């Protein structure tokens, strides 16, 4: 059993295809693991035991019938609870959607099902993906498998923790300001934010429409690429989805070569305020790239300094509008419907009771920033900053093929440490946010442990829009070099649960 849960997705799929394992055996092994450890980790909000086994049986039947199987057929996956799943609860980590059973599948959900991926359940997250620690979930925090008293990052802490605790070999996250990459970094896993528009947002509950992007999470670069290929591609249901072929990510992950590659190190994505061990591991990664034949170029992207400020105007503005639909009229929580309150009052009471403090904070912030008289100074200026950041990236990518940085300024922080200090919490996304504002693609992968706390550090690789394959080419090379150096994948150093 232990062996099954520690296999990579690629290996699992191969064994199912060869008949060495059945999809049902694989699903059962993971369900058993969830049963055994998730009480401690709390990665899942909902485990769909029946659905998972039914899907696994269908895969086995397909194989028995000699039908062709996809590259991830029968591989279990943990789905962030932000994607709608027909007939299976979707809460977005919020009380306001408690008990809601969506009548439709998100495009990502549908593509996973069509690819015969076995969805084990829905993972915990910061409410409406707002947060960097998963502590903003209305259903309680998730523990970091490296140290259960620490956060697994956020908002996709549940997905990252599920991977790091071997409760699934694959997971899906969403990344608005770092919610895939930052959890990946602090849990020692791999997470990719594809180019904006690369993965359909249809059925992905919106936080900030112009920044949100779904993406793959895994324990290896190749597994992430295999998953990327399944979920990406044009969707006519999402107007902002890119109508172009998916970049050759799997091929890139299998080639893993950086010789002659120009790698940029951006001055503004590092320096003061970064944990010493994070800086040490990052510098080591740059040296490793150089050793692999890459040319390292130092760059400056001056507008990045304003990224966090711009992000905290744009994302709340869009969220204030996106979350307006939660009004108790058609679905979800309804408070005060006792005949003594008007519809307007029911809406207000429901929102008061259903949204947590961080969500309320952002709705208020965004409502203010969009108000007449303030729009130009706040939302308008933030959009200008956004353009400047995109230009900084354009200039950088005239000189280099990819940019690298630490994914996060620090390793995983203790649960409770930053909950009362929103600004400190927001800093966790310092390095990841510029990428969302520009719409580029980026990956985080493990680059070692910080000596001072023994916790994982993430290396961020950033590629221009539509060049997602570069992430995988560089990521695979770095991963191979590190694993060779360490003698094993980093995650094997995590404590046994």
């Amino acid at each position, binding site marked *: 059993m232990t062996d099954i849960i520690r296999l990579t997705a690629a290996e699992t799929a191969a064994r199912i295809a060869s008949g060495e394992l059945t999809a049902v055996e694989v699903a059962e092994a993971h369900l058993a693991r969830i049963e055994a450890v998730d009480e401690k980790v709390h990665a899942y909000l909902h485990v769909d035991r029946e659905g998972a086994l039914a899907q696994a049986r269908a895969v086995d039947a397909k194989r028995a019938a000699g039908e062709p199987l996809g590259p991830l057929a029968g591989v279990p996956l943990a789905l962030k609870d932000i*994607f*709608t799943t027909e007939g299976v609860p*979707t809460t*977005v980590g919020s009380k306001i*959607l408690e008990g*809601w059973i*969506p*009548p*439709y599948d*998100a495009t990502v959900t549908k593509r996973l099902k069509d690819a015969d991926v076995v969805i084990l359940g829905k993972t915990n997250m910061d409410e409406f993906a707002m947060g960097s620690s998963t502590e903003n979930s209305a259903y309680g925090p998730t523990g970091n498998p490296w140290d259960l008293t620490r956060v697994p990052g956020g908002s996709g802490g549940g997905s990252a923790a599920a991977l790091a605790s071997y409760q699934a070999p694959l997971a899906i996250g969403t990344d608005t300001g770092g919610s895939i990459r930052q959890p990946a970094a602090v849990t020692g896993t791999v997470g990719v934010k594809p180019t904006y528009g690369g993965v359909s*947002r*249809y*059925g*992905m*509950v*919106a936080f*900030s*429409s*112009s920044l949100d992007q779904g993406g793959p999470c895994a324990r290896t670069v190749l597994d992430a690429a295999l998953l990327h290929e399944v979920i990406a591609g044009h969707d*006519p*249901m*999402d*107007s*902002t989805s890119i109508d172009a072929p998916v970049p050759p990510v799997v091929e890139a992950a299998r080639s893993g070569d950086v010789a002659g590659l120009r790698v940029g190190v951006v001055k503004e994505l590092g320096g003061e305020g970064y944990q010493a061990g994070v800086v040490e591991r990052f510098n080591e990664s740059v040296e490793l790239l150089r050793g692999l034949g890459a040319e390292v170029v130092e760059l400056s992207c001056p507008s990045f300094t304003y990224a966090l400020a711009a992000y905290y105007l744009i994302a709340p*503005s*869009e969220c*204030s*509008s996106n979350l*307006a*639909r*939660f*009004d108790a*009229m*058609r*679905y979800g929580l309804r408070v005060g419907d006792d005949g003594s309150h008007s*519809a*307007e009052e029911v*809406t207000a009471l429901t929102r008061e009771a259903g949204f947590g403090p961080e969500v309320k904070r952002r709705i208020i912030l965004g*409502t203010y920033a*969009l*108000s*007449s008289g303030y*729009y130009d100074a706040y*939302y308008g200026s933030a959009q200008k900053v956004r353009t400047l950041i995109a230009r900084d990236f354009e200039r950088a990518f005239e000189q280099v093929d990819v940019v690298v940085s630490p994914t996060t300024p620090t390793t995983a922080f203790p649960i409770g440490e930053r909950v009362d200090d929103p600004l400190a919490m927001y800093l966790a996304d310092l390095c990841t946010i510029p990428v969302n504002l520009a719409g580029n693609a980026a990956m985080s992968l493990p680059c070692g442990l910080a000596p001072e706390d023994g916790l994982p550090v993430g290396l961020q690789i950033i590629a221009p829009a539509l060049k997602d394959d570069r992430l995988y080419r560089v990521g695979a090379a770095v991963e191979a070099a590190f694993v060779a150096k360490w003698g094993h994948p980093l995650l094997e150093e995590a404590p046994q649960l």
Partner: protein
Amino acid sequence: MTVTDLLSYEDALASYDPVMGLEVHVELGTRTKMFCGCSTALGAEPNSQTCPTCLGLPGALPVVNESGVESAIRIGLALNCEIAQWCRFARKNYFYPDMPKNFQTSQYDEPIAYNGYLDVQLEDGEVFRVHIERAHMEEDTGKSTHIGGATGRIHGASHSLLDYNRAGIPLIEIVTKPIEGAGARAPEVARAYVAELRELIRALGVSEARMEMGQLRCDVNLSLRPLGEKKFGTRSETKNVNSLRSVERAARFEIQRHAAVLSSGGTIVQETRHFHEEDGSTTSGRIKEEAEDYRYFPEPDLVPIAPPREWVEELRGSLPELPLARRERLKKEWGISDFEMQSALNAGAIDLITATIDAGADAASARKWWMGELARHANEAGVELSEVAITPQQVARISALVAAGELNDKLARQVIEGVLAGEGDPDRVVEKRGLKVVSDEGALNAAVDQAIADNAAVADKIRGGNLAAAGALIGAVMKLTRGQADAKRVRELVLEKLQG
């Protein structure tokens, strides 16, 4: 309803100059909704034409209906507007239970069409140019039905029912620039503008534009300023004025009300007002103490629209003959006055008359039936002329029977009555009701003789040269023949017999 003080219309216009702004919403007749694939057909079971997108379910996204964009561009072109090279949708944020997302996807500072005009013709033939500020695309809301309240409004209701079938139906909002210089004719201009716009929309085939069905809805914004003053006064916004007549009445009422307030030293409050069909009055709706803040921002779920220029030119080239030009042509062809054409327009009769002529009737009789008997019938039944249960082909057939002398006008009216009562085609009604003109000379002679015998005194007067008395005898003959005699022939026979 509180009684509102009004100044007489004449007095109001003696001191003040009205300025209007008209906002018209047109529901497009596209097969599917603006941002999803749901049907727009009317009359379906509540909430049966909905999907995650138009219900605003979490995660659902909009996709623009191309045919809605095409309709918007065609309307813009017909209104002599410039068509945007590049424009975006915007979110208009406000809470209302029948609005699924609690924002309306609309356009804000980047409308698809802007800077146009529409020439409208007043009853005396004068052409007044109404300048168009913009025409933009947006989506309709759902429909609330408030139960238990006295007036059907939300206030006092015990509960409300929500139907989202209408949510997401494409709307085009057409906004005029301030209409100045209409003076006392402002209400007439308002009515003529909406009537002309309705004709235009129908001619383009983008909507049936039936006001009674809410497919064309008008808001009348009105302010007064002292004669000679350049600065606009404070305006009121009378919402959902939903017939041509009401548009005119609402404008007139507001002119009188504003004048009464201003002339007594009061100030006009900027507010929305409700129009009351029963007495033509308006009452205060919601006072805009603080300007409603819709927090518009560009809709991030939709990509900008950049209509290719070749497409726009192709659409321009394929516009149909526009209503005003068409009416000028028809006016000449039919040989009628501006006033008569205006009446036909107001009655919604132009297409019906045209179709009747196409079916073989002459212009005069086609117009006579539609504008007379049938218009009266529509009016009594409270329906649009086009909804009267008779076809142009049937009217043309009746007209042909009259021309052939087989029916007189009186009988023709009975045939119409029969057709409207569902008794079948004109020929069938004639046969069933036995409505032929009596052309049998023997029967007619007998009837005339009978009438002379019955009315000896009258007959003597005629013999004595009093021709005016003949009417009484003709009447008697018509009575005997149950109206089926040809009156002209009866007169000839009477005079023949009595004057030799």
